[in-house]
């Protein structure tokens, strides 16, 4: 095989080529996988440099078969619509629950596990959502500031959770935000129809278990990382017509409340 044809293969491998037309993507998918397969068998025995080559060719192959954007890292973080199928999400969440149910001895431990899983999502979600908000503000070129705002007041951050985090995760705002009457460091975020557990109905032998602990963990994670130390728990509070209505109880640390008082005096 001569070098020019090889380099041409590389060029056509980079996705749709308007000069060649539809054939540009169709042809390369046939020829490239064979090549990578043979290279893979070689690289298992040989030096790290060939491993590097394998990595580069396999990424090329991804580019070939899926078009211009191959993995999630190649895509722009800002997307106007970033919707995923509810069915696949439900099946995934179902397996998450099964997994944490299998390895735990009590319902409390199981809720703890779900909470921990969500916590790690929350840590990352805050960053992503602020970034996307930034993009949107820049695109709209409205009077809003172009940099992400760091929320320092309790009400501000809870509003942010209700009005920005919820639409990003579930495509709708949370239904209500309430302050507890009995306890001044408790706030409640209320969702009448939580999407993740829309199809989930807890049987009698697991009574008291709330699968929305996962979402509570997300909220806890993102509040923690923005310096609002708290604990978040999920409680189901069904109403007529809303069998899965859930209350996320946010229990702030006393240091947060005293900080809040200090800030409001200024």
């Amino acid at each position, binding site marked *: 095989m001569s070098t020019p044809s090889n380099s041409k293969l590389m060029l056509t491998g980079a996705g749709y080529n308007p000069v060649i037309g539809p054939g540009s993507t169709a042809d390369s998918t046939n020829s490239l996988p064979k090549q990578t397969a043979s290279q893979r068998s070689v690289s298992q025995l040989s030096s790290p440099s060939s491993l590097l080559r394998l990595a580069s060719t396999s990424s090329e192959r991804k580019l070939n078969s899926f078009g211009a954007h191959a993995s999630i890292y190649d895509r722009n973080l800002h997307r106007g619509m970033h919707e995923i199928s509810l*069915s696949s999400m*439900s*099946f995934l*969440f*179902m*397996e998450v*629950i*099964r997994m944490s*149910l299998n390895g735990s001895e009590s319902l409390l431990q199981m809720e703890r596990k779900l909470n921990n899983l969500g916590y790690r999502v929350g840590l990352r979600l805050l960053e992503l959502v602020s970034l996307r908000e930034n993009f949107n503000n820049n695109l709209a070129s409205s009077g809003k500031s172009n940099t992400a705002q760091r929320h320092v007041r309790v009400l501000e951050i809870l509003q942010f959770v209700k009005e920005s985090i919820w639409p990003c995760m579930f495509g709708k705002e949370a239904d209500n935000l309430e302050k507890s009457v009995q306890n001044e460091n408790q706030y409640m975020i209320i969702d009448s129809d939580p999407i993740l557990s829309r*199809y*989930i*109905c*807890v*049987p009698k032998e*697991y009574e008291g278990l709330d*699968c929305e602990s996962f979402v509570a963990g997300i909220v806890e994670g993102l509040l923690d990382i923005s310096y609002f130390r708290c604990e978040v728990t999920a409680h189901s509070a069904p109403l007529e017509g809303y*069998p899965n209505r859930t209350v996320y109880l946010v229990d702030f640390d006393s240091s947060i409340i005293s900080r809040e008082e200090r800030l409001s005096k200024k």
Partner: protein
Amino acid sequence: MPIYSFYLISKSGSLLYQKDFHSQNSPISKQNSNDYLVIASTLHGVHAIASKLTPEEAMGNYEKSRLPTNSNRFGLQCITTAKFKIFIHQTTTGLKLILFTSNDVSLIQATQLQGQLYKSYADYVLKNPFYRLDMPIRFRLFDDKVLTVVTGYNA
């Protein structure tokens, strides 16, 4: 066009779910739970026998009928009696949805309704982490959903 009752039968013939719907002058009387099991397994057996008995010439009927989700190719589809009809719908996984209806319900209408019920089964039973396959279904959400689908049709 009232619907009298609804059965779900697993691919091995065990009864997963049974529900009678209230309607005036229903010819279906209330049975005890053992009888429901007997009805279910009898229908399952009869369906299997019928699929063996289907003559060669009738094998093409399924392809002509174009019922999208129904994989009930050669088996029993409908039993008509003097007082009610029984419609049997089999999904690709071997699950059977059986409807007992009044005589004026057509096969098309029954298939539509069975499709809707199949959808709620796929949503509210299969996506529920607490459900074990081939075990009886006892979920309040599924109950509610079946009731709204059928009452929506009865009305």
